[in-house]
């Protein structure tokens, strides 16, 4: 399964990619913001993990744009962000995010959320 990991923090991208490797997902593509993620996204990507606050294009704007593309309409999007007020979480849902992880996260939480979305990713 191929993952697209989007975060403007190189440290966070590395942590997420290493966490994915640890739970058995070694095929990853990285992007530093929403614009770059849109450019890198193609039909081979089966799962997206994105931050919210990024330059050029935020995670929510990226998700909205992704949902308008045929190959991105149903791909699972997991948002990993420091934002955690109710309004933000609802905004993320409205943008098309499938699940939500609050930073700082544990590898167990990441695994749980990915596992929950795997059937959709495999479909």
């Amino acid at each position: 399964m191929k993952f697209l990991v989007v975060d403007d923090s190189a440290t966070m991208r590395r942590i997420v990619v290493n966490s994915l490797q640890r739970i058995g997902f070694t095929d990853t593509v990285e992007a530093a913001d929403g614009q770059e993620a849109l450019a890198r996204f193609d039909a081979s990507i089966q799962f997206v993990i994105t931050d919210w606050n990024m330059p050029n294009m935020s995670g929510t704007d990226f998700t909205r744009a992704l949902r308008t593309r045929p190959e991105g309409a149903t791909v699972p999007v997991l948002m990993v962000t420091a934002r955690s007020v109710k309004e933000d979480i609802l905004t993320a849902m409205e943008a098309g995010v499938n699940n939500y992880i609050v930073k700082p996260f544990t590898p167990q939480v990441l695994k749980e959320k990915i596992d929950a979305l795997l059937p959709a990713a495999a479909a």
Partner: protein
Amino acid sequence: MRSCRRPQPDGAANAMSTHRTQEVLYETEAALRLVDHGLDGLREERPDSDHVAPTPPSMDGGLSALPAILERANAQILGVLARLRESRAALETTALEKLASTHEKIQEVTSATEDAAINIMDACDRATQMVDELDAIDAEPTPDRERAGTVRGSLRDELFLMMGALQFQDITSQQLAHASSVLVEMEKRLIDIARLFDTRVDTDVFSTRVAAAMPDEQTYDPNATTRDSESRQALADEIFTTVRHNAA
């Protein structure tokens, strides 16, 4: 008090408070100009006391107007004082609150870095003990491979825990970006105030520097925190569950 410049509208999200403060300061400046003008008029009407002998008030048409001028000046000064009080209140409710929250954020950065450092050091200690344990297993005449495998697994967990602890870097950088944006905003306000009292202050130079120093507000969350991640995650889970349940 010779120039009177209307504040330019702010485009930033926090423009309301800044704009209101600028408006109050502008009105204050206008009131002070009126006082200045009144005092100029008073100076013109009053003879030069160094060169002309004092004239009895009853004989002097200029001085007879003095009470009225002073009364007007007094009203204007009272207006200025009211404006200054309002200006001070506006600064207190916006600037001071923001500075207080910024101070808290910086304190949190300190504690978050310390917590992360302690977690990493603890993990290092445990990892070192595990390496020693692996050495001891290797030194045995018949090394217990199963036990060594378990220790290696635990060692990997510790190394992974160290990496996870580095998440503080992302959050603290957002907190520092927020703190930086508040400082830049305060600098901008101080420049606006300085400009009221001295028209020679070159605001363009400051404005350019301030604009360059302002962090991109899209790149950070002002409420970012390393605290209570479990309860915040629980809130997110609850919202997702409830909204999905209601939609079903």
